[in-house]
């Protein structure tokens, strides 16, 4: 198993902070009515995107979900273009045409958030097929939720990846809920990883609140994929702190405060910081400096987004077709 370096640990840590602060800020802006539409926030799940993405280059593809900001940030997304997109501004990654649910950047290898649950896995299979066809050693990673694992599209994609031994990693971020429906009310199994056997691929379970565990498990899966040994289904047990949409969301009582508290006690950032401090890699003060720095970046980017122009109505019918 690849030994994790201090630099990588710090890299993961910074990505997690970037996600956390971006998301907290975005959620507030949405609930204050500044950002239109619906935001699905990633807070609580930061370890997964961050620890997976440090293994990838811009030529490795990912597909994401409706809960996609974290994936894009971890893949290198810039706050300016991200906030601008959330605000629907012309300077956004998608020129304001996509918004939160379709935020994307091909240059970073990010094939888009997706408003369709289960929309991503077949596309990731296509990207993996492409990587193999073009004889690269690049991989594609498909992030999806526990809820999405019940979509037929996931099944078809997983079967095809297994069949063609494609360099695809299926990462199920099992946060225990699909919207307001608990996992036990949407599938009769506890571990989504149990489905891997049906596609001829390994199914691996990892603690999604533990960045280092995710780093190691994802590293194994990605190494296998690059080596032409085929796909892996990696299930990360995790939790989202906020509501399905926004922060407070609809205020439904589908889960208890105690449950949320239990998970928050295992906060992926806090526990990583503790470990980094214990090992003398990053002092609490230095960690705080990262937070502060990122917070400033976020504030700057919010300002950038707010000051950016709305797309001109004349652009409405542009970008439907390529020349």
């Amino acid at each position, binding site marked *: 198993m690849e030994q994790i370096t201090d630099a990588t640990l710090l890299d993961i840590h910074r990505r997690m902070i970037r996600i956390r602060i971006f998301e907290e800020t975005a959620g507030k802006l949405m609930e204050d009515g500044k950002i239109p539409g619906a935001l699905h926030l990633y807070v609580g799940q930061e370890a997964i995107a961050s620890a997976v993405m440090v293994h990838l280059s811009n030529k490795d593809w990912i597909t994401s979900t409706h809960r996609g900001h974290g994936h894009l940030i971890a893949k290198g997304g810039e706050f300016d273009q991200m906030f601008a997109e959330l605000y629907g501004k012309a300077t956004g990654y998608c020129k304001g045409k996509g918004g939160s649910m379709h935020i994307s950047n091909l240059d970073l290898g990010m094939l888009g958030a997706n408003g369709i649950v289960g929309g991503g896995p077949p596309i990731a299979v296509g990207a993996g097929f492409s990587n193999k066809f073009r004889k690269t050693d690049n991989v594609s990673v498909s992030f999806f939720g526990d809820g999405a694992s019940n979509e037929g599209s996931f099944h078809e994609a997983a079967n095809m990846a297994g069949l063609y031994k494609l360099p695809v990693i299926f990462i199920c971020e099992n946060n225990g809920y699909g*919207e*307001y429906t608990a996992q036990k009310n949407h599938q009769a199994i506890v571990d989504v990883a149990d489905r891997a056997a049906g596609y001829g691929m390994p199914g691996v379970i990892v603690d999604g609140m533990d960045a280092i565990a995710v780093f190691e498990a994802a590293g194994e899966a990605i190494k296998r994929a690059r080596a032409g040994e085929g796909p892996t289904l990696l299930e990360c047990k995790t939790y989202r702190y906020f509501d399905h949409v926004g922060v407070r969301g609809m205020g*439904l009582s589908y889960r208890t405060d105690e449950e949320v508290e239990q998970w928050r006690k295992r906060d992926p950032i806090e526990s990583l910081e503790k470990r980094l401090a214990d090992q003398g890699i990053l002092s609490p003060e230095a960690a705080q400096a990262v937070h502060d720095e990122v917070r400033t970046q976020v504030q700057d980017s919010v300002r950038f987004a707010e000051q950016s122009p709305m797309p001109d109505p004349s652009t*409405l019918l542009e970008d439907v077709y390529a020349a």
Partner: protein
Amino acid sequence: MAEAQVKPRTLPYVAAITDGVRAVLREQDNAFVVGEDVAGAGGVYGYYKGILKEFGPDRIYDTPISEEGIVGLGVGASATGCRPIIDLMFMDFMGECMDEISNQMAKMRYMFGGRVTLPVTMLTMAGAGASLAAQHSQSLEAWICHLPGLKVVMPTTPYDAKGLIISAARDNNPVIVVLNKMSLGMMGEVPEESYAIPIGEANIVRPGANYTIVAIGRMVHEALKAAEQLKDLGIDAEVIDPRSLQPFDTATVVKSVEKTHRALVVHEAVRFGGIGAEIASQIQELAFDYLDAPVARVGAPFSPVPFSPALEAHYVPNADRIVAEVKKQLGI
């Protein structure tokens, strides 16, 4: 049972949907509701609120995120003695279950020589205007109106929402009820008792003398606003809400055009290939000699629904665009 005489009660569209579903569950023992987040959460737009509490877990079920499975459940259960109400959270998700809708639900009766009956009702949410972008804002009624075997209704008021849901559920055929997310807060009179609105009968929501506007779904309200503006131009527009798109009440529309000599069809869906094309074609086929001008159409332009409010505002048809189109047609 003697219904007590109640005085007019107003409800928002969202509560009228609930009221319709409640009426169905009361009057039909074999009716139940299935869909994503319908039971515990009461639906993401809240229109099943209270149903679980009132009717219990045997009558309303949360499902996995499995649209094809949900529709298939509706097909199989309705073929075997139940009267399911299936919920498709957003109409945009029809892509996930179009096989069960089009190849099974719509065709099974015909393929079986009429020897099966599918009393299944599907509720789904359409419409743009909420900055939900390309995959949560579509109006795809054109797809399903093109499928023999289905009925398609689009309630535009709280009154119609309740009444059409009840009619859909009493119908012995698959009926798709297309709701509109921007109308959820709209208030209107909704009787307490159960009542049905005949499927296939258009509603003349504003009688008028010299112009016919056929407006689909939420566009009815924009057409009514447009009609007010048109008054100043000396145009007395008749606004027709077909309510049911399949079957379509051609007669009412044609009769109107025979009187007014001019017509415009408006819908939220993309103009090219929208249901407006069918309606405009029918009008010119059947009232050609009465027409003083071509039948006009207003619909969304040819792009996916944009996210940015700045673009979406220019995308979704509204009263101003209707008025502009009328003026263009009249050369004023």
